[in-house]
């Protein structure tokens, strides 16, 4: 038995060493790394789509292009459309995941630190971690709602590549993706407080061609991100049969 334990420990030790050899240990940021941030386009601050809440007073929005699906995925979409669900699981507080997480009518805060861009998404209180330290994308990341992202600066544009999405996320309503979905986003300033976000979804199994949409964000220097706990008082629901409803009941006592 002790020999077995020793043998197991040995295997663990060897695997740890080989893992460590593959991933260079990140260096702590030096003063020069912090200073280098000042030379990058200033994406920091709180941003929101300008049409939100302005009741159409914002810039006119051209109809977004529709994703062109492969025959197999078009058939799958028809099946899902035929279920005629009233709504999505967002009504049950499930976050949408990428790419829809970047289309909320709520603000986003961008933070720049050495080797990383962080996007705090107010809706559903989510965070996107975009590593800009030169690391490659992992070969086979665990599937997640927002995927695994790396970024690089292409002159004045932050180019973000994301892979590894949960099957619970979709390209669009009733439009599943394959495990080969990749999303490329290009963020660049178009004015002192305006930013263009171009999003391209690439999925050779689901899409006939890459699907690109563009959104403009406006910066609000005086805004801060607020808390958003969807389960705090969610009275909306979508049941297993796809029927949406509202739970009225008695008002919750707040004392």
């Amino acid at each position, binding site marked *: 038995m002790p020999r077995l334990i020793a043998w197991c420990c040995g295997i663990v030790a060897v695997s740890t060493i080989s893992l460590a050899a593959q991933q260079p240990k990140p260096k702590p940021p030096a003063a020069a790394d912090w200073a280098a941030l000042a030379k990058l386009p200033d994406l920091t601050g709180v941003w929101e789509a300008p049409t939100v809440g302005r*009741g159409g007073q914002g810039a006119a929005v051209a109809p977004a292009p529709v994703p062109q699906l492969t025959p197999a995925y078009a058939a799958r979409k028809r099946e899902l459309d035929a279920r005629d669900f009233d709504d999505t699981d967002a009504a049950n507080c499930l976050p949408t995941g990428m790419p829809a997480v970047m289309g909320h009518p709520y603000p986003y805060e961008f933070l720049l630190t050495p080797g990383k861009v962080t996007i705090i998404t107010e809706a559903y209180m989510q965070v996107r971690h975009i590593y800009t330290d030169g690391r490659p994308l992992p070969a086979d990341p665990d599937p997640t709602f927002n995927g695994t992202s790396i970024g690089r600066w292409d002159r004045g544009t932050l180019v973000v590549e994301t892979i590894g999405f949960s099957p619970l996320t979709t390209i669009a309503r009733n439009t599943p993706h394959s495990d080969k979905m990749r999303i490329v986003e290009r963020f660049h300033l178009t004015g002192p407080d305006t930013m263009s976000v171009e999003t391209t979804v690439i999925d050779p199994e689901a899409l006939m061609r890459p699907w690109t949409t563009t959104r403009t964000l406006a910066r609000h220097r005086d805004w801060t991100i607020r808390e*958003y706990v969807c389960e705090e008082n969610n009275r*909306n629901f979508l049941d297993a049969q796809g029927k*949406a*409803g509202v739970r009225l009941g008695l*008002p919750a006592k707040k004392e």
Partner: protein
Amino acid sequence: MKPIPRAACRTILMIAMICGVATVAWSHHSAAPVFEMNAEKTVMGVVKQVDWTNPHIWIWLDVPNESGRAETFGFEGMSPNFLARRGWTRTSLLPGMRITVTFRPLKDGKAGGMFMTGRLEDGKVLTSAGAQ
């Protein structure tokens, strides 16, 4: 062309704001499956409770019915996050205030709906797009 009177302008602007918000900013759930989006009702009552909560605020209003007894209506509004950036505060509506609420009724016929506007006794108007 005659200039449009200022009051009419304000009304048009308010309608545009409400319609815009209803289509653009309702991200948590679709409104059409649960509310009659083409209908509008108005009730007058006394605020019983305000839930200044995510993902939506809820305004509970005691409305006297034909027999004189109060029936409690529930109105779903935007989120506190959205409204706090547009002139509302968590004390804009307080228990005891008398308001006239315009709403999109619930499809299931229950007492309540989607909050559109609330007119206070002092003439102040709170809308789903912001306070005015």
